[in-house]
């Protein structure tokens, strides 16, 4: 149980996918302008990360590893995740049209999101069991959510500031992202020692 909590917390804070591992930067910079779209995107990412792990972990463990096809990992995972996202979209459109509408274009965008592929591959590399892998993906999704919500707050504050002309737009956003990511370094070593 302690191990699961450590995995969850370290996925959220220490190994935050956006701010420490620098995966999924495109939605982080692209969709964080407004809080509601940032929330929608993050919820979709959490959902897809969990689904993707639930499907790719068994494929890797029961299909690819036993038949010595580990080198097909990347292409098979991308294939499966893409199909899965499409399936989720069809199901949502049929049964929860309101959620489908609010997720909008973000859902298909996640198909090629490096954070989702990163989670599924790192789950295998770390040698997690199925439960641990699921907890890790949940934590990664929550970490993405945290980063998106925090950064949309930062960006809305920047909007109201008098930014020097040469820094306006993307430059100040990148500087702010760097400082936000720097602040997450402070979590290093905290979680391990919490349960020591």
């Amino acid at each position, binding site marked *: 149980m302690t191990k699961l909590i450590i995995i969850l917390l370290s996925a959220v804070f220490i190994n935050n996918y956006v701010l420490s591992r620098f995966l999924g930067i495109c939605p982080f910079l692209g969709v964080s302008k407004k809080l509601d779209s940032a929330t929608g995107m993050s919820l979709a990412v959490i959902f897809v990360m969990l689904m993707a792990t639930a499907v790719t972990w068994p494929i890797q463990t029961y299909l690819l590893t036993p*038949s010595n096809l580990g080198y097909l990992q990347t*292409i*098979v995972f991308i294939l499966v995740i893409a*199909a899965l996202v499409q*399936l989720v979209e069809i199901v949502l*459109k049929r*049964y929860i049209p309101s959620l489908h509408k609010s997720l909008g274009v973000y859902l298909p965008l996640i198909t090629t999101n490096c954070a989702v592929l990163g989670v599924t591959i790192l789950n295998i590399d770390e040698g997690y069991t199925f439960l641990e892998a699921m907890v890790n993906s949940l934590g990664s999704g929550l970490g993405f959510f945290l980063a998106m919500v925090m950064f949309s707050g930062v960006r809305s504050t920047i909007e109201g500031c008098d930014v020097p002309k040469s820094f306006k737009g993307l430059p100040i956003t990148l500087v702010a992202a760097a400082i936000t990511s720097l602040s997450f370094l402070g979590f290093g070593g905290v979680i391990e020692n919490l349960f020591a």
Partner: protein
Amino acid sequence: MDFSPILTAVIPVVIIGVICAAVLVAASKIMAVKEDERFPAVRECLPGANCGACGFAGCDGYAKALCENPDTPANLCIPGADGVARQLSEVLGVEFEDVVEQVAVVHCAGDCSYTEDKVDYHGMQTCSAAKLMYGGKGSCTYGCLGLGDCAAACPQDAICIENGIAHVNTRKCIGCGLCAKACPNHLISLVPDVERVVITCSNKDKGAQTRKVCKNGCIGCRKCVKVCPNGAITVENNCAVIDYEKCDNCPDFGICARSCTTGCIMLADLSGIHRVK
């Protein structure tokens, strides 16, 4: 040459791909959402301003209502006017009906030469903020605050603030009514047709009180009520109101405006609102 390493890699990927494809095809067949085939065509006709003047939530909402409910009138799109109504009636196969075109009218003409400020306001430069401070900076608390909430809401840049009050450019106005919703004093209303008699005061105080704060104000003397041949003008809460369903631009067009004691009844045409007296 031995092809088996290639085959052992390709075959599993192909199998997984085929399974995924089969699942997706099955899912899209089973869970297909029925979409009215007329919807894209109907949506294409609408201007896409999402102004809400039709009474539905944006152009998508109106298009959906048109497809699903045959009783929905096809002449509700005011910005699109007759052109859009004609296209819609063709697509839907219903009879074409005229669109009642509307323009926004500001029911206040108390500009800087008719009324005065009671305070020097330096707060947030929006009407809704100024309204919270003792009803605005002007001595008349019913009048135009002149900070341009309506101009900011206008999608067509048809409203400008001149000499302290809002003016509508009737050539640009599409009659969407967004300004009417934005005005904290509810001074703007939509009036059918462009050439009309309009009342440019909304002060609900008694005549003497109104007279003190604005030289243009309606004092509720009922002269216009008496001269109107159609009985279209009434005085409600010390301020004249025109019922445009009764007012048919009578032969003696503008008699009410000419008889008005303070000149707050004016004539509107394409070039703007004109004082008669």
